[in-house]
């Protein structure tokens, strides 16, 4: 089965769960006065769930015929591309999200930029480290000092 149909299957599942919530569970706690309204909080989701189920079924069953285009990247030959780098960068983003608060902006960001470059194959440490540090400092100064948006600069245990 083609990837677009697998995705349609997942979307169908999402729409069924969404529809089930809208049709059967959402109105349980509705206040009595709201039940007299012609529209309930579940009305719009109910309509959407029907459209969603129909559209995903049309894709899943291949009712709409069209050319099977391969996009910019052929997902069937992912190993021919730099898949490992892409996965590592996504994991690095997750790590950054988890470390941003406990380790502070300055450490997390400079580490993110350095490790990101390393993953992509950069080995010139004399360039990589100063670039990451200067960029981190510049962004922190711009965001925190110029724009006034708080970004905890140092790790949490330092209390700053």
């Amino acid at each position, binding site marked *: 089965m083609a*990837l*677009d149909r697998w995705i349609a299957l997942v979307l169908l599942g999402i729409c069924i769960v969404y529809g089930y919530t809208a049709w059967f569970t959402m109105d349980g706690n509705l206040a009595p006065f709201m039940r007299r*309204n*012609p529209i309930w909080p*579940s009305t719009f989701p109910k309509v959407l769930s029907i459209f969603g189920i129909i559209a995903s079924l049309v*894709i899943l069953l291949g009712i709409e015929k069209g050319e099977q285009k391969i996009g*910019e990247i052929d997902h069937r030959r992912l190993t021919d591309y730099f898949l490992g780098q*892409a996965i590592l960068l996504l994991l690095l983003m997750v790590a950054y999200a988890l470390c941003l608060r406990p380790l502070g902006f300055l450490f997390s960001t400079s580490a993110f930029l350095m490790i990101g470059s390393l993953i992509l194959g950069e080995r010139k440490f004399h360039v990589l480290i100063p670039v990451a540090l200067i960029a981190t400092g510049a962004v922190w100064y711009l965001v925190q000092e110029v724009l006034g948006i708080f970004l905890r600069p140092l790790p949490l245990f330092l209390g700053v």
Partner: protein
Amino acid sequence: MLEGILIGLQTALSFQNLMVVIGGCLIGTFIGMLPGLGPMSIIAIMIPVAITMGDPSAALILLAGVYYGAIFGGSTSSILLNAPGVAGTVASSFDGYPMARQGKAGKALTIAAIASFAGGTIGAILLMIFAPMLSSVALLFHSAEYFALMVVGLSAIAAFAGPGQVTKALMMTVLGLIMATVGEGALFNLPRFTAGIMDLQSGFGFITLAMAMFALPEAIFLVLKPKNLGEDGGDIKNLRISRAEAKAIAPVIGRQSVQGFFIGVLPGAGATIASFLGYAVERNIAPKAEQEEFGKGSIKGLAAPESANNAACTGSFVPLLTLGIPGSGTTAILLGALIALNVTPGPRLMVDEPQIFWAVIMSMFIGNLVLLILNLPLIPYIAKLLAIPRNYLIPFILFFTLMGAYIGQNNATELLLLVGFGVCGIALKFANYPLPPLLIGFILGGMMEDNFSRSMQLYGGPSFIFERPMTLVLLLVAACLILLPTLRARRGKKA
């Protein structure tokens, strides 16, 4: 109108706003040249900055400047490296890149700058003339018509998805609408589909979604399939165009600016359609000998899409400013910014906050002029940015994507959501699901439900569809827009 123009000029020409538009154009141009960051992503990145400015006029002027700058920046990478950062500049690479390869990169960039300037300026003039007219018509619209109009906008987006992709675009639109229902609705004040998670109480952040659906997949695609950035810059020193060449492109620019503007006004059309259509029209009406030059470095083939896409970008501001309906993914993000700035987009904007409305229009003129003046001498230098090694460029793109989402919500959970949605966006892109309809559906979803609910309450049920003729007409138009491409595709196959 004159009073409005004066108000707009007064606001746009203040020192602060002049600096803002210049800064916006420069930022847009520089970042717009970087593959992976189209106008949509750049505007999404700049929204937190704009919101922090506090003044809605200045914020919108900044975003308009960034928008124009980003489009011009995208054209630069299209012409020099055949690497269009956005769909709207793909047509510019058809003839721009061959020109660069022939050692006419400077000339190509000059034509692109002049065509963009002319397209943007003519578009702004048309916007001044037509926006008030559309606005007065829009005042006749009630919540029922607004609901129907949003359905038209959404269905038009689906119809532009190309043959065999209409259902996918529709699915993405519905998914966007579904995501918009997560959290507390404006009318009901009840948490919906939050699964008890407190962070979802206020729904998904639109910046997070915009980053996840556009910037992140583009950056990851650049990792998967590296492009040789900065290798084929060509000779970009000679910027001069001859009088004969100027004479040849002038009517092309005039025609395509007008055509592009009106295409841009249509919800769902926008710069991509305008640029392809402009290219096709000029190729078809050109003399036979010139037709053969198209695709091999024709100056007309470059001027047409450049002027059309800039005019279309200006045109897309008409439904945004007068009706509150985004005509493209980028204006959908701008709409989100307007709402975040407590500016209610729609017909009342011109009446209630004329300084904002007219300042944006005036800033378009100033922005276009600034772009032309600043970019021509900077062309040889700004192109060098593309030579930043991929090993440094990509981590920075990813970092700015994360920062955009984090600064917008100041919540680390948003970053995890960003990565999660980003992975979904990559999978959807692999399977050729169009992503802009998802974002437009998400942004329009809340307003659509509000108008739908209001109409249902006013009319005691769905009878408003038949009791208000305009609503019925608009819904029928929407049905045609959904069905026509499918029928056309089937007829084409039979033939």
